[in-house]
């Protein structure tokens, strides 16, 4: 096919996805969609294979392909122009029930030529806990509405009976209705634009271009893989739920132009919703693979072809029904993301050509805290604390990680302003700032995480409640690379201040640090907690992993970090081996002290 038409069609396809994303954000109007960019839109070929992946939560690109294929199989003979299908069953293809896929066939002159699919994290899905993440659920049956495939729109007409049934099962149905409208509108835009494209270039030309686009991606990735050395690399993630520890163990093997991800050795599935299904793990490993290996390759089926996955059945990464999975996206899937990021980066590090692309893990553990209750205007509100989308970048071969710099699987996320949060919920922030000593030490430092504290403010019911399903409190999940330390782990505290409230003193309404907040500071990570009366919630989120030996870090960079409050004097000395006098590097002292530390390191046993 001629390269000119090909390049024009390729760019049009990208624009179509981009425009559909904008439609989704416009119509949805919710914070998690607009601020967090917790969404995805992609185009699929007539057989359901990925044609053009958009920039959203990347672990959805392949799962939605499976969802398409599942709909094609289930509704064979009953797929018509103007239909829209819904699928959100995690054991069919979805990641968890609250990320609903709406999938629509695209017809041209009566023939099915492509599919579009999108998701948003809906306002609520009717699980035990509000907001979709349901730590109290111990099976899929209590994780809310779940469908392996149904027809929501029939030839352009919304099926009211179906829609009403869905809305009948969720909290704040009017908000969920809006989420559904946004996804329908998004699919409509994708369909219209695809039809315009075919009208201009002819459906056969477009189809040929699509096929070559996929072949091209496959060729490019296989070429890249052949440039990289053969070998196998391992990564391990620990995560903790209610005192139990789970492992995701990944062995990635690269042979010629094939890449195999083997999760053998990972823990058995959990009674809590941190598990994920097979398709979720499959999506999870692609989330870092697209931006790390395919930053200059179109994200489509061609990238998927050279990849294989082995995931033992009944494990946290391939749970069997009816195991709960509502927290998968920030549970096992995120562990898969992290482990794949590490293995891929280790492989990149073994190549002169690609070593500069390697990165330690970014923002290894999300904290999915959903607030719910009546706000200062008396409205029932559910919403996520968007700070979890602030993230923290891992250190890279080319430099430090970006402080509060986001995450790899969701390339364009952001967090809301404090003023937006205080306007939306009856809360007041005491502080929100970068966290000292949270970025993983290394020759290149991991990006810092941050900390914040909130208290109730002007709440008609004296406060609100929140659902928390955090991990990464017992074990750091942002692994370092090439000797770099992991980023610091996360921490959540429920501050009870009953005594102080009772004697009316020492409330410290403007406390500037956790230590200044009087009362008991209980570690929490899982379940529903109050933010009522004199309670406070303190959150400290993880930093990014470090890269390389901290003793090789430029002492001047350490001094800058210490002066900026991002690294403590103690860590500068003990971990980085830098001696500072009044904030300035003592060159001789540093050289000597680093020599001493290195000498100490050499004394010891051989590892085996």
């Amino acid at each position, binding site marked *: 096919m001629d390269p000119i038409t090909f390049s024009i069609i390729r760019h049009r396809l990208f624009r179509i996805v981009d425009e559909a994303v904008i439609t989704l954000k416009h119509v949805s109007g919710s914070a998690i969609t607009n601020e967090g960019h917790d969404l995805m839109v992609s185009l699929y070929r007539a057989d359901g294979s990925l044609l053009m992946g958009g920039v959203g939560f990347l672990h959805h690109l392949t799962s939605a392909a499976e969802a398409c294929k599942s709909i094609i199989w289930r509704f064979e003979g009953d797929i018509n122009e103007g239909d829209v299908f819904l699928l959100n069953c995690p054991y069919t293809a979805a990641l968890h029930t609250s990320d609903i896929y709406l999938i629509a066939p695209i017809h041209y002159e009566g023939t099915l030529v492509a599919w579009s699919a999108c998701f948003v994290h809906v306002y609520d899905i009717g699980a035990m806990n509000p907001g979709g993440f349901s730590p109290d659920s111990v099976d899929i049956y209590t994780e809310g509405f779940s469908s392996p495939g149904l027809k929501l729109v029939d030839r352009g007409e919304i099926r009211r009976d179906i829609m009403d049934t869905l809305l009948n099962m969720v909290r704040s149905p009017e908000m969920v209705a809006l989420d559904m409208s946004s996804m329908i509108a998004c699919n409509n835009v994708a369909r219209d634009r695809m039809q315009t494209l075919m009208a201009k270039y002819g459906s056969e030309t477009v189809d040929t271009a699509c096929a070559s686009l996929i072949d091209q991606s496959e060729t490019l990735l296989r070429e890249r893989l052949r440039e990289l*050395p*053969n070998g*196998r*690399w*391992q*990564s*391990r993630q*620990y995560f*903790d739920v209610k005192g139990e*520890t789970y*492992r995701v163990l990944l*062995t990635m093997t690269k042979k010629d132009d094939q890449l195999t991800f083997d999760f053998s050795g990972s823990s058995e599935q959990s009674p809590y919703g941190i598990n994920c299904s097979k398709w979720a793990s499959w999506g999870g490993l692609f989330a870092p693979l697209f931006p790390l290996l395919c930053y200059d390759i179109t994200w489509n089926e061609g990238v998927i072809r050279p990849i294989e996955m082995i995931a033992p059945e009944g494990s946290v990464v391939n749970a069997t029904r009816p195991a709960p999975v509502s927290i998968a996206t920030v549970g096992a899937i995120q562990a898969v993301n992290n482990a794949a990021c590490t293995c891929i980066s*280790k492989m990149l*590090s*073994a190549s*002169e050509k690609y*070593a500069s692309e*390697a990165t330690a893990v970014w923002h290894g553990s999300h904290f999915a805290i959903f607030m719910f209750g009546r706000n200062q205007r008396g409205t029932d509100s559910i919403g996520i604390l968007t700070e979890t989308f602030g993230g923290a970048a891992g250190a890279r*071969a080319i430099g430090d990680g970006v402080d509060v710099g986001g995450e790899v699987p969701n390339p364009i996320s952001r967090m809301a302003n404090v003023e937006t949060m205080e306007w939306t919920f009856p809360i007041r922030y005491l502080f929100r700032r970068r*966290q*000292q*000593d*949270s970025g*993983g*030490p290394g020759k290149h430092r991991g990006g810092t995480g941050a900390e914040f504290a909130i208290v109730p403010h002007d709440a008609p019911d004296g406060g609100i409640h929140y659902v928390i399903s955090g991990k990464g409190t*017992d*074990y*750091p999940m942002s*692994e*370092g690379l*090439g*000797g*770099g*330390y*992991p980023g*610091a*782990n996360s*921490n959540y505290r429920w501050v009870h201040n009953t005594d102080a409230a009772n004697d009316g003193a020492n409330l410290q309404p403007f406390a500037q640090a956790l230590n200044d907040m009087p009362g008991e500071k209980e570690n929490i990570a899982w379940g529903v907690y109050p933010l009522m009366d004199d309670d406070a919630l303190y959150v*400290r989120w993880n*930093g990014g992993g470090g*890269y*390389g*030996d901290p*003793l*090789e870090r430029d002492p001047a960079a350490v001094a800058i970090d210490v002066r900026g409050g991002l*690294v*403590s004097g*103690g*860590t500068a000395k003990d*971990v980085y081996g830098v001696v500072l006098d009044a904030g300035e590097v003592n060159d001789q002292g540093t050289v000597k002290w680093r020599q001493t*530390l*290195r*000498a*100490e*390191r*050499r004394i010891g*046993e*051989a*590892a*085996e």
Partner: protein
Amino acid sequence: MTRILSATLVRDSDDAIACAGCGHALGPAGQPWKPAAVLSEVAMKGLGGAPYSAADDALLRRFLCPGCGTLLDSETALPGDPFLEDVVEA
């Protein structure tokens, strides 16, 4: 002619895995090298400063060069878990 194997390791001209900093050999290429390194296991808690408030059993395993003390690799681990194995084929 050396070839890089990781951020800290190379394969030297004798086909051995070696420290990129000092050239100290750590065994033949294509084999696990960690057993030849100095192992230091330290508690994760407090390791990089106060925010490292990890569980008591969390460890950071540091694999150090016996020649120059460079930190060659590190891994988060629980006691008894095997070393992560990274092997670049010879």
